């Protein structure tokens, strides 16, 4: 069982610090996804583990041995690049066997390993071809094959699917997950696509500006984001944010006023709100966290547009004060553009954030425990 331990990793370019003391422990055969907006440091973090960037502080250890001083090929990691990075002058078989050739492995052994990997990836018919004669999906499979052949302890993926079209991307997501289960190694996968993160990860690492914001399983992060950033980053459509005010605080109940509508929420047992009565806060409502109510009961709004997707209806509603929100309803709802509608946030689905954007401990019910 492999263990990857990262302690206080710091990366500086000159005076500019881009990674600020990151800690992360990964065990067994977890699939970890680094996600965040561009420039958040996720690729630099991955490249530091690969050895393509020298780190300025901290340690990276695999199975208790620090690897941050070792050459990339000595670390027991293999990487799949965004643009495949296949050698154009070598055949598929030569590409896949190149690392073994450099390591001095005998030709028959290389052939055995390359053939085994080609069989897993269904690349046997293409072994004699050059990368230029392959489709994007096939090239990506060769790039993955090149990593598999080295039998690494840690697989590193740097946005490997971003050059593929949507259909192929969905297909390759599943392929990569299946391969990961087969290989039984740690996989670290970098993406800016939160759908990839949600669908593939055992644990997601959300990053921003060189800091880790939160680490957890996709649903942990979706249901209990630690701050406004994580809440807004994960989930499609994005969470709706509305300004609100704390109007009452009594025992385990708090009352918020949101655009003139009063809502009572329960506070998590043993926790206390970090804000006082009268404080300005922000409320987060997922697109599926709205109830459509009778005229005059909730917030008045107007339908901007309703997208009929058959299985669900996505409606954009303009509330008072020029605030546009998104609502998802299961099933088919006939809503006309410009039609008046009254909405109320479901109290048990509400998120709240204090002035610093940190989550307020509001008790919530999720789809599974409803």
């Amino acid at each position: 069982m492999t263990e990857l331990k990262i302690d206080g990793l710091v990366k500086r370019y000159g005076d500019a610090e881009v990674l600020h003391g990151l800690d992360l422990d990964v065990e067994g055969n977890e699939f970890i996804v680094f996600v965040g907006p561009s420039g958040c440091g996720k690729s630099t973090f991955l490249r530091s583990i690969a050895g393509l960037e020298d780190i300025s502080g901290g340690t990276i250890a695999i199975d208790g041995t620090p690897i941050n001083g070792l050459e990339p090929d000595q670390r027991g990691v293999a990487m799949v690049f965004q643009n495949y990075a296949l050698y154009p002058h070598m055949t598929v078989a030569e590409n896949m066997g190149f690392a073994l050739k450099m390591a001095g492995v005998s030709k028959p052994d290389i052939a055995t390993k390359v053939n085994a990997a080609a069989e897993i990836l269904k690349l046997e018919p293409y072994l004699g071809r050059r990368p230029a004669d392959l489709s994007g999906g096939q090239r990506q499979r060769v790039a993955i094959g090149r990593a598999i052949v080295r039998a690494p302890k840690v697989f590193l993926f740097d946005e490997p699917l971003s050059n593929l079209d949507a259909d192929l991307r969905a297909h390759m997501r599943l392929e990569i997950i299946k391969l990961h289960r087969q290989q039984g190694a740690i996989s670290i996968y970098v993406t800016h696509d939160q759908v990839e993160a949600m669908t593939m990860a055992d644990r997601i690492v959300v990053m921003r500006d060189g800091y880790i914001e939160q680490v957890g399983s996709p649903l942990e992060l979706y249901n209990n984001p630690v701050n406004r950033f994580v809440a807004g980053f994960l989930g499609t459509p994005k969470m709706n944010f509305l300004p609100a005010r704390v109007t009452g605080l009594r025992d385990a109940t708090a009352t918020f006023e949101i655009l003139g509508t009063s809502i009572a929420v329960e506070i998590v047992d043993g926790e206390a709100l970090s804000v006082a009565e009268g404080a300005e806060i922000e409320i987060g409502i997922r697109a599926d966290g709205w109830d459509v109510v009778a005229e005059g009961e909730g917030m008045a709004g107007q339908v901007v547009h309703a997208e009929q997707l058959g299985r669900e209806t996505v409606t954009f509603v303009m509330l008072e004060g020029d605030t546009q929100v998104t609502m998802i309803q299961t099933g088919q709802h006939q809503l006309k553009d410009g039609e008046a509608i009254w909405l109320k946030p479901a109290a048990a689905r509400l998120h709240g954030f204090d002035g610093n954007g940190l989550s307020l401990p509001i008790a919530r019910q999720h789809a599974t425990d409803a």
Partner: protein
Amino acid sequence: MSATTSTTMFPKTRKLAWLMHLFLIGYSLLILLPLTWVVMGALKTNREMFTDPIALPKDPNWGTFITAWDDGVRDYFFNSVIVSGFSVALIVVISAMAAYALTRLNFPFRRGLYLIIILCFAIPMHAVLVPIYVLLSDFGLLNTHAGLILPYAAFGLPFSIILMYSFFYEFPTELEEAAKLDGCGPWRRLWHVVLPLSKPILVSVAIFNLVSIWNEFLLATIVMTSPEVQTLPLGLVRFRDQYATNWPGMLAAITIGSLPLLAAFVAFQKYFIRSMAGMGK
């Protein structure tokens, strides 16, 4: 609407294409006619040459080539091959390594060094002919192959390094990073990944330098004074004096002298055009 656009556009484009073809045909004739005249002249007898210089040879006399070859062209030819071959090899090897180091390694004064190399490109050989002569003389290199090879290599390097620099600068770094993960140090990366993918630029650097070195006259005149080490351009002059009355012989020598460059260009045309079209890519 697209139909009207194409009818109005078409004659304009066609006119331009006509003009360009006309220019290219004229230019080709300018080069090819004298060349044909040289080859045809070599196949004539001396008398034919004077009585009917424009006509085709009545009875092609291939023996002229053998006579010219045996009469000294052979020695000049091999001197040229040695001097050009070694100079070009030195230039290709050194400029590739220098450009790679300049684009990939981090060392002090790297930019300054590159600027100095660009500056060297601006210095014409004529300006430093005398110091070069003195240097070669002090080192005892006059009338030796090395006496031409070293200055040729030195003067070929700046432009070659600049060409290679721009090529390596845009070389995909991901490929080299993949090679790092595959266990390649800088030398292996250069040898297994970068150089095999740099064939077009290597070939065009080689041909560029080959053309100018093969034809170089000025430095060769002052460095190579004894006939046994002289290169083809000097040999042809000597031939002119020696064969003042034997035109076919001289034309045969010129033909033999032009063949290697033609052959090199035909053999590597693909790379040459590709790298020229991409301005050194």
